[in-house]
């Protein structure tokens, strides 16, 4: 098992003829992801990396049975692309696009909820179930099949941590980059629930950062619902208030959303917080040892 993506994923690449879409379609295919189609309005009938291109998502779904879609279109068109996928019956949409306006995402989340579509992102690196499906821009070679679930608001920090896990013999079930925007699709709580229900996942790493109170909510959820061990790391302890730290969502507003509050919440929920990323493998091993003893 695993969560969200696996061998049964039939991936559609929206914006496959663009620079990023084309490049990453190639990389994902190389990794072994089952890419069945791409879309680009007006370019239906072409092929990119041997993948058939359709004018509309609806066409692509009808012809190929695509069930998951990844979006590489520019920010101004990302909301419409997500909605097109949702109305065409796609189950899971991964939006890589960075810079999507918040109001667009508020509307989009409300609409796709009605349609029963799941969304990851936008402004996210995607997700991977090692050896089964890479759906995103993550560097496939650092991942290793295993039993650790990891989710994160950040990209390269995820790679840093995954690399340490892999080097310490801790493979991953599914790694999910939920994205750095303030209003995004699936978030900690939903994904924690999936990890909890996934027989292959034995422990979870939650990488948070400043801004919002999703980590606090996750801590509460963990305390109440999770039987599997969770360890965490929070980036941005030294970030000043009022400044956006790269990610649109990484901002301490009106004194709320600080790393301190988040760390306190995790402590309360008995979730160890690593002081630096390199502590994570050790904390995990400790927790796993306890869990099996």
């Amino acid at each position, binding site marked *: 098992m695993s969560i969200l993506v696996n061998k049964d994923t039939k991936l559609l690449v929206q914006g496959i003829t663009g620079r990023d879409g084309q490049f990453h379609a190639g990389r994902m295919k190389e990794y072994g992801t089952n890419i069945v189609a791409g879309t680009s309005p007006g370019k239906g009938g072409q092929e990119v990396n041997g993948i058939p291109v359709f004018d509309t998502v609806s066409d692509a779904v009808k012809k190929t049975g695509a069930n998951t879609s990844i979006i590489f279109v520019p920010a101004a068109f990302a909301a419409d692309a997500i909605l097109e996928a949702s109305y065409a019956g796609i189950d899971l949409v991964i939006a890589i696009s960075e810079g999507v306006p*918040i109001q667009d995402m508020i509307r989009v989340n409300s609409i796709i909820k009605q349609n029963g579509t799941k969304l990851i992102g936008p402004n996210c690196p995607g997700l991977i179930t090692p050896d089964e499906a890479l759906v995103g821009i993550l*560097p496939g070679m650092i991942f290793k099949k295993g039993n650790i679930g990891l989710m*994160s608001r950040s*990209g390269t920090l995820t790679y840093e941590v995954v690399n340490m896990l892999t080097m310490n013999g801790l493979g991953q079930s599914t790694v999910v980059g939920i994205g750095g925007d303030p209003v995004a699709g699936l978030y900690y709580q939903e994904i924690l629930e999936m990890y909890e229900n996934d027989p292959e996942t034995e422990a979870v790493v939650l990488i948070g950062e400043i801004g919002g109170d999703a980590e606090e909510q996750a801590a509460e959820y963990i305390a109440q619902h999770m039987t599997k061990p969770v360890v965490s790391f929070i980036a941005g302890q030294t*970030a000043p208030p009022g400044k956006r*730290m790269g990610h649109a969502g990484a901002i301490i507003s009106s004194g709320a959303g600080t790393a301190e509050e988040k760390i306190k919440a995790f402590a309360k929920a008995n979730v160890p917080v690593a002081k630096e990323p390199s502590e994570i493998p050790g904390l995990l091993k400790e927790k796993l040892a306890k869990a099996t003893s």
Partner: protein
Amino acid sequence: MKIHEFHSRNIFRKYGLPVPNDVLCHSVEEVEKAMAKFDDMVVVKAQVLVGGRGKAGGVKLAKNKEEAVSAARKILGMDIKGLTVEKVLVTEAVDIEKEFYVGLINDRNTKTVTLMASAEGGVEIEEVAKETPELIHKLPIDPLIGLLDFQAREVAMKLFGNVKLARKAAVIMQKLYQLFVETDSTIAEINPLVLTPDHKIWAIDGKMNFDDNALYRQAEIEAMREADEDELKEIDAHEKGLSYVKLDGNIGCMVNGAGLAMATMDMIKLYGGEPANFLDIGGSSNPQKVVDAMNILISDKNVNAVMINIFGGITRCDDVARGLIKALDIIKSDIPIVVRLSGTNAEEGLALLKETGLPTVETMSEAAKKAIELSQGQKS
């Protein structure tokens, strides 16, 4: 993006919110001239992009022209939290019976625009939120439906307890919602919303922030941007594809990825150093970005050591190395640098750097420690 109070007031007016008349003045002379337009009491208000101007003496009541001029003389040029006051707004004063708070924000948890309203207006809403959260009425607004009449009226009734006033206030809330959505705001607040003894309602002070990601479709709003020196640097970096925030420390950081960049800052602090900035060069492999980033770093006079921390995913470490070599060649700075390259093409990158003699390390912890050492060596 933040804007001045006078800009917020103009946006409020455009959407039909009740805002007292005002005149923006850049000098004492302009204030003197402006007073011809006012018969009664005015308020002279410093226009600065920072909170707390009231406590700092940046807001003064004036009964007549003499008082207004004297107030303007005191306020213009005043320093408020490091910012110099260059403009004042002269505005009609209104009699206050009671002050309320009405604001809208994007709520991450409900994924909606959320209305917040309180009968405790005129003070910082964050204080109210901390001390007496039960006095703030919150209503998540369905993005597909908007703020319905009865919903706005119910919230307004909780504030005013009188249906006639509540109807007026409800319309104000609905207009505020409309402008919030149409201008891609992240905050739009009226604080205070004032009830006068003769039962008029006025929006006395307005604050608006905007979604940077939406500025491409908000030309009118973007034209209101007024950045200070640090912000200009940030905007300049943004245009080059970099994300930069200046801090007060002395160790410059160059990192790929926002989360890793924050973690890098944190680690410097953890080992006893002080980061000089947040700098994310993003996911591309363009060597020019490294040159641009290096330029920004050394233009900060406080920086006396640089830590470069790259985890190659899409970014290729050899590209970063090439950019760095180019940058060192152009820039000719003697600020010491420590480099950590890991991930995609790290070996190639490290091989390229060998010729430069730059110290390289394997992990980010080592890099942080080395950077602190370098910065201290520099100091002594």
